[in-house]
Every structure is written in C-alpha cells, then in structure tokens.
C-alpha cells in the first residue's frame, strides 16, 4: 500500500514538472498558433546554462532562476519577432521550429559536448532532499517544481480571465485581424506571450538541472511526455495543462509500481489516444484560449 501511495505522490509531483515543461508550448500553440518544437531545446539550454553558472561560480542553482527567466524571456521575444518577419503560420512553424530545435541541439553539443553533465551534490544539495509524511517521501525539487507550476498555471488563468492583457490574448488567439481592428496591438501581445512561454521553459530547465543528468539528446525523450500533456490539457489552457500533467504523472507512476516501468509509456499513449478519440479539444475547454 505504501508503494502505491509513493507511486501516486511521485506521480503528482513529477506531473508538476511535466506541466511546467508543457505550459509554454500549450500557450504558444493555443494563442499564437505556433507549434514550437524549439521549446524542448530552450528547456535543455536553460538547464545547461544553470549547470554552467552553478559549477563555474559555485552558486545556488535555484538562484539561477533570476538569470535564466529574464534571459529566456528576451529569447522568446526575439524568436517571435523572427516568426513575424518570416510570416510563420501554424503548419510552417512545425518545420521552422524543428530546424531551430536541431540548431540549438547542435550548439549545445558543440559547447558542452555529447557527454553527460551533472551538478555535483556539494553544489546541488536539493536533488536528494525530501521530507516524509507517514513514510511517503515528498522530494523537495519536485515539490518546488509542482508549486511553481501551480503558481504559473493559476497566474496565467487569472491573467487570461481577469485582465485586459488576457482578454487581448484571447482576442488575438481567436481572430488576430479582428483584434487589430479593435485596436489591440496583436504583435506586441504575441511577443510578450512568446517571452512568457520561453521564460516558463527556462524555469523548467532549472529543475531539470537540479534533478537530472544532462546530455544533448535528453530533450528528444521529452516529446513523448509533453505532447500528450499539451493535447490532453487543451491548447492554451494552463490549468488544463497542469491537470493533464498530474494525470499523466500519476498514471505513469501507478502503472510503474503495479506493472513495471515498461508499462508507463503504454499507459501514457493509451490515455492520449483515448483523449484524441473522445475529446480532441482537451479535457478542459471552458477556459481555453484556443
């Protein structure tokens, strides 16, 4: 029973990290109609930068949030400006951002080599820190990632439903031309949203750097986790993405402890296919901006 409980708790917490990795793509796809495959590279690039700064300056890796978040916000702004210039639409974005993904992967391999990189325990005390409730471990990095994902998902939901900027985003998502006709600077809205999406990927990168061993191909493994979550959660729906992350995390965690880790991908993609069949618009559509 304790094993099952541990599987559920781990699944919920890791689901938060998955959601953090997915929210940026969901917003970009839902609101900007950009299927940003480069997002995966941004997460890993952020992780490598956190790694490099941490080992070079012997600083707390969590503090690197203050560096990578604004840095990647700017990167997102630049990328979106490029998309405007190149007139990238939804379908072209698949090809263009896949190209960007390859370029960023190559750059990372050139800089950090193909070898494995890991922040050692002296500089990174967080990776093995946990607290226990009734014998169930709550891993600190995953818990913090979950809280951050919760804050971002909730914050974005409030932004989209309660603020003028949120209304502008929804208007741009639904009909950019009409939004422009009503005086909304759709390019500015898109640039800010792209910056935010990329900054969220940077936050995910911080937790990847803290909790995992990095190598350039690591990002490829995330495709099979993030896309089911984005689709299941509903495009542009931050709360839906968090919910989907938790569902996928718990399903994978529970199936791992019950039937072995080999069953986890099977369960994940079964959930995705069932969702595509019965709710292709996502689990939660009421607050979706797409």
């Amino acid at each position, binding site marked *: 029973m304790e094993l099952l409980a541990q599987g559920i708790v781990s699944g919920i917490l890791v689901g938060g990290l998955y959601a953090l990795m997915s929210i940026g793509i969901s917003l970009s796809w839902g609101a900007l109609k950009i299927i940003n495959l480069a997002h995966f590279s941004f997460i890993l690039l952020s992780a490598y930068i956190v790694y490099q700064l941490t080992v070079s300056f012997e600083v707390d890796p969590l503090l690197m949030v203050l560096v990578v978040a604004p840095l990647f916000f700017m990167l997102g702004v630049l990328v979106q400006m490029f998309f405007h210039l190149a007139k990238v639409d939804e379908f072209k974005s698949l090809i263009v951002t896949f190209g960007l993904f390859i370029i960023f992967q*190559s750059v990372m391999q050139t800089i950090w080599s*193909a070898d494995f*990189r890991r922040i050692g325990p002296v500089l990174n005390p967080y990776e093995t820190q946990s607290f226990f409730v009734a014998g169930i471990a709550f891993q600190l990095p*995953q818990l913090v990632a979950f809280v951050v994902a919760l804050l971002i998902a909730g914050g974005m939901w409030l932004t989209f439903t309660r603020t003028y900027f949120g209304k502008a985003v929804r208007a741009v998502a639904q009909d950019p031309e009409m939004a422009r006709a009503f005086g909304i600077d759709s390019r500015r809205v898109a640039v800010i949203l792209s910056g935010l999406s990329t900054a969220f990927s940077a936050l995910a990168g911080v937790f990847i750097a803290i909790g995992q061993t990095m*190598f350039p*191909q690591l*990002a*490829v493994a995330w495709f099979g986790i993030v896309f089911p979550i984005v689709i299941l959660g509903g495009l542009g729906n931050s709360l839906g993405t968090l919910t989907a992350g938790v569902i996928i995390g718990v399903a994978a965690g529970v199936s*791992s402890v019950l039937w072995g880790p080999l069953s*986890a991908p099977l369960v994940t993609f079964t959930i995705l296919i069932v969702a595509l069949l019965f709710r292709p618009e996502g689990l939660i559509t009421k607050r979706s901006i797409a």
Partner: protein
Amino acid sequence: MRPRRSWTYLTLITALALVIAACGGDEGGGTTTLGTGTTVASSTTQGGTETTAATETTAASGEPIRVGSTLALTGFLAATAAIHKVTGEVFVDRINAAGGLLGRPVEWVLLDDESTPDLAAAAYERLITEDEVDLILGPYGTGNITAAMAVAQRYGYAFPHHTASLTYAYTYECQFSSWSTGLHPNITNPNLLYDALESTGTPPETIGFVVNEFPGTMFISYGQPDTDEGGAVAEAEKRGWEVVLDVTFPTATSDWGPLAAQVRDADPDFLYIAGLGVDAPNLVTAMQAIDYSPDGMFVQWPAPGPVLATEGADGMMSVTIFEEHPPFTDDPEAVEVAGMIDAALTEAGVPYAKVETQAAASWTAWEYLQQAAEGAGSLDQQAMCDWLVENGAQTLFHGDIEFFPEEQNYFEDLSKIKQVQDGEWYTVYPEEFAAPDRSVEFSPGG
C-alpha cells in the same frame, strides 16, 4: 472548418511524438532506427561529415592506407563514441609516427553514423564501394556494430570491432571483438561479480534486479532469447540467493521515483542494475531522495564520470578491463599510451578523461587491424582474417590474445570488478588485479 484543422495538427503531432518517443532516450544505443534532431544535416548517405586524421610522417611513404569506419559523432551514443574517436586519432598519429603500416601512412576516413544502425550500414557500404577504403574498423554501439558487420560480411572484409554486447549473434568468421567479455558474458560477468561478493565472506542473501530493456542488458540479465541458458538472474538463483525484485525499465525512463520506490519496497541486500550510461546515477539519486540505499550495488555499463559525481554511489561496483592504476600500469608503454589518450580526452573536453573499458577496447581493435595487416604482409582481407585466427594478437591492454573459431572468435572473459571507493574507481577483484591496498567492500546490513 476549424476542428478539422485542429484534428490534422493534433494527429500530425501525435504521430511525431510517437515516432520520437519510440527512438528517444536510448543512451545505451543500438536499437534506434530513426535519425534524430541534431544529426539530420549530416546524413552520411548524402555526403556526410568526414574527418581525416594526420597522415604525413617522415618514415612512411607512398599512397596512404585508408581505414574506413563510422562513429556516433552525433546522437544518443555520441558521449561514448567521442572516446573512440580520440583513441583512434591517437593510434593513427602514433602508428604514422612509427613509420606507418606496411611502410605506408595511415589515413582514417571517419563518417558520422548518427547513432543509427541503418545509417551505419549505409556508411560502410559507401566506404567499401565508393570510397574504396583498404581496411575497415567497427563503429561504436551494439546496434551499429551489428548492422556494419553484415556489410563487412557481404564484402568479405576483416572486421575488428569494440564494445558490441550481443556476442551470440556475431557468427561472421572474420569478426574480432576487442571487448574481452567472452562469448557468454551473461554467465561469466555475473559470476565474476558473485565470486567477488562471496570473497568478502558475507555474500548477500537477497538480490534485486532492475534491467534496462536495451538488448545487451537484457541478454546479460536473462540470457540469449529462446534458449534456457539464463543470465545474471538465473545465476544468482543457482547460488541460493533469493531474487526479491526483477523489474525491467524503458531506455527512455525520465521519472525514476517509482522504480526507486519498488527497490525500497523489495529491500534487497544487493542491487544489480543491469543498466548503462546514467541509469545508475539517476536511480541512486531517486533512491537517496526517498532515504533509501541498498547495502551494495552493481551497474553493468555505466558512464564512469557521472557515477563518481553522484551522492550515495560510493561502493558501487561495475566491470572493467583496464584502470589507470597498478597492476595495469606496470607496463611503461601502457602508461605512456594511457597518458597520451588522457591528454587527448582532456583536450577534447571529455569530462572523465581516463582510459578505462571504452578506450582500452578501442585501442585493442586498432591493434588487431594493424597486426593483421602486418602479419599477413598485405591488405588481402581473407589473409588478414586467417592470420588473426591462426596467430591471435599481442595487445597493450589485454596482453596476448588467442581467438577461438569454435567460440565465434571470442576469447575468455577478461573482465574485472571495479568499485567506487573514496570517490574514485578502483579495480578490486580478482585480487591479483586489485589496486594496491584495495579489496571488495560489501557487508549486508553494514
């Protein structure tokens, strides 16, 4: 209209995610069948990236002898393949400085197989038929080696290669593995470990297995498919040890928490991690996070550097064929060559810049090639093959080797057991190969 567009994109993305997930995360390599992100631009079948090692020496003269091979310069296997690239470059430099091969300079034509078996096969086809190289050497990674070996066999090339793990599958009479695991590493490797544990006088009573679904680790753990030979699990049972956990995990595992919880729940005296790359550091970290650590652990084929950087990995065991300490370094030439490779690895930015299994196996494969050509006195492939079978090879890191055709040209398992002690890897078993003042450390409940 809108829902139909969304459906199209969703279906497209799902297909993409399924395909990438299917090939993703295979850091141990060998089973992927699709090129990946970083490598598309350098497809070897379309011109490929090509590097040529230094060839000019004062003593060697004439047309260079061209040695063709691929390595996973990009893709999942690139981290380890970088070691083979550096080692090969050092070997070529050294042989050219010493007068070349058969009096001619050696040129290494190296292509990127992108960690992908079908590209490796295509590249070897190109090397043999278009580039018309004189000799070939195996690539890195079980899947790539297996694919390239079929091409070598088709054209009758002698095929020295390094770390391929599916020994039973290599029946080509001119294949020569330089990884001294023997033909039955599924039996010999685990028993070497189990002997080491029993040498402490306090062997485990219970053992747990976590097995990467990579074909090589499955073979080590369970034996050759469709036979009853067995592997590490069955051998442990033969010793009367209770197997309290036997679970297989995917190569692309990203959440290690559930697996760590399963290990804690089973609580074995000794944990056998039939994994590779960074499987062990990831699992150990996840176990540490739930405040659990087995009394002893073994990992089959780890990336050595990350293990040392992992909290809780002290005492971890593995297999090795060479470590940079006595008695391996009793030979001054081994020390000299290891020093050259170390320096080149450092210059190449490889974090763990020491000669161990990968570099040693790589060097040995080059030695096979050199000695076969020199022994045969020509570049005739069959003559080289015959010469190696008849004469064996004298190697720097393995000593004298005799190939047994009845054992598919394999020789005995020369593996040793190494262990992380005081933050470094040391060979600890067999005793005659142990580093000075080092021995196996294991005590259940201790």
